[in-house]
């Protein structure tokens, strides 16, 4: 038997923080390739400490629903899961290239395949593009659009900016959008001046965040000038300095993120059958259905 455990941050204060995690778990559960699909949180229950004992399978694929490699993926999660002999070297990563490591957990008799975070997987670039399609309601969105991928910035962890650049560069290479840039909340180039960085009138802004919360629903919309007060909401698209800003909200809420979770587990050796295809297809029809609403 094989289990998938999605580990995420969660929140003591924000009831919606866990929603994307639950949604992706449900999508993957429906695909039916894992005997068990569980979720665990740093701030909610079950905790990282206690999730493995709720799982029956001997093979467990743990996928962090985090944006970048750093404090949580390198230190907190392995420690709390009691991964024996965990050493960052096992990931052999340059900051965005971790795939997985195979370990045992001290409190259960299971093999734990500890995967890199979803945010740095190549497939996350596709989710960002899908997010742009969803927010514009145009499955061909690209020509005539600029794309801004937004990150937190270095703050505590330089890998977080690396992940943003990784995807901005990958998407730029495809040539699908007229312009692609990485922007940040607390370092240059700053999101506050978003319109200064683009020639194109239509700019799709996709924050590389897992869940919507304070940053994506309050800070970023106000910083970009979509609204003076986040509580009154904003238009999509919103007119700012002669540009139209299509603000997408956290990329992690996009249904296709479930695909990245599965790909992480598959890269670590999970037998996922045709789940990748199924989920890619199913989340696309969901996206189109909601865009038509």
């Amino acid at each position, binding site marked *: 038997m094989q289990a998938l455990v999605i580990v995420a941050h969660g929140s*003591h204060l924000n009831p919606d923080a866990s929603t994307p995690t639950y949604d992706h778990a449900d999508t993957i559960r429906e695909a039916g390739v894992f005997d068990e699909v569980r979720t665990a949180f740093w701030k909610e*229950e079950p905790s990282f400490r206690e999730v493995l004992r709720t799982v029956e399978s001997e093979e467990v694929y743990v996928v962090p629903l985090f944006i970048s490699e750093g404090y949580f993926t390198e230190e907190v999660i392995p420690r709390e899961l009691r991964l024996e002999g965990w050493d960052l070297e096992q990931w052999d990563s340059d900051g965005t290239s971790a795939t997985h490591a195979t370990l045992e957990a001290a409190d259960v008799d299971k093999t734990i395949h500890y995967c890199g975070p979803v945010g740095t997987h190549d497939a996350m670039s596709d989710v960002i593009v899908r997010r742009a399609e969803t927010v514009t309601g145009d499955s061909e969105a690209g020509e005539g659009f600029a794309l801004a991928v937004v990150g937190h910035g270095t703050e505590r962890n330089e890998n977080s900016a690396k992940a943003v650049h990784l995807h901005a560069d990958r998407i730029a290479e495809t040539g699908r959008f007229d312009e692609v840039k990485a922007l940040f909340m607390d370092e240059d180039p700053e999101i506050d001046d978003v319109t200064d960085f683009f020639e194109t009138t239509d700019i799709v802004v996709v924050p590389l965040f897992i869940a919507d919360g304070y940053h994506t629903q309050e800070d970023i919309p106000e910083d970009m000038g979509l609204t003076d007060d986040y509580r009154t909401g904003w238009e999509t698209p919103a007119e700012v300095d002669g540009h139209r800003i299509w603000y997408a909200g956290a990329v992690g809420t996009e249904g296709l993120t479930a695909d990245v979770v599965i790909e992480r587990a598959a890269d670590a050796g999970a037998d996922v059958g045709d789940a990748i295809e199924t989920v890619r297809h199913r989340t696309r029809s969901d996206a189109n259905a909601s865009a038509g609403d």
Partner: protein
Amino acid sequence: MTDVNDEQLDALLSAAASGVDYDGLVAEHDVDGYRFETPDGTHEELTEAEFGELADRNPWFVSNWYYWRARDRPDTEVAFLRYLEGADDRPVTDRYETMADDGIVASWGQLRIDIALGEDGHRVYTVRNETEADTAIESLTVHTDPLEARELVKHDDRGRYRPLKTAPTLPTGWAFVDLDGRALAETVEYVYPATIANWHLERRGELDVDHWRETMERQSGIYSVIKTWDRGEGHEHVNWVAEACCADSQCLKRREWEYEDGTPLEVDGGDGEFPCREPCSLVVTAARQWTKLEGEETKRYEFELTPSEKEQIEAIVDAVADGEAESIREADIYEGANRYRARFLRAKRFDEEGRLCGVPTDDGS
């Protein structure tokens, strides 16, 4: 009583070869034939047909064995479901009679679980909030998919987010019906995550408790400061934390963690069915704030208050701490924590900067 079902009889016939001895049912097969035994009597040297007739007359014993043994259930789930129906203490006939009648009533935290007899001796479980034990199921919102429990338990009846799943604020108005054993265990897992697993470990004497000291030593990042709160001069502060957060009025888990191995806290751990094996993330987060606040030295302040005003301040702290401030009626001006009373006190005793009796806080910095 219905006849025994063929599938169950076949399963029992083949299991008899290696011997069955379960909840009072004994079934064996050797060179002399079959043996069939229940607390009502022993029958030996039976032909397969005779064995079948006896099974037919004792369908409860057969289906009971089948329910627990012949299906592929994890040990934890078997232990939990058997515990709910008191299977280790109550004879098969007693349980079946009750299930066939009004059903067996069990509880887990604030959940009320009704166990009824389903087809072929299977169980059908119903789950709801215990305060709605007498409410007709029809007047509740009915669910059958365990996953729906996740959203249901996110907010309490006042619409407030429940960051602690085992807080005694389980919302009302819903019921899960027609659940089989697996679906029941899943539902409980979403309402009270990991409680079944930890309960089972504890029953087997294998619960891995991490006490306060170990837990705080383990913290890193913004939480590493908490270890500085333990200064080796007693652990009164941890008693206060446990009293504040872990009392049964705040959390249904039974706190099994102590200050450290061999140094128990003086505060009662509670009476819950399921154990708490280490300070949870809520307690860790609160402890970080307390570590900062408790770093302050006390100072001497002088306030002029009437005796009733002093008591009123105590009443306000009590009302907030017990979560009762909201339920004090609008015009109940006899309660110190009544809103008008509190507003009057503020109007009289606070200066325009919100300082009690105009006394500056002077944090000494």
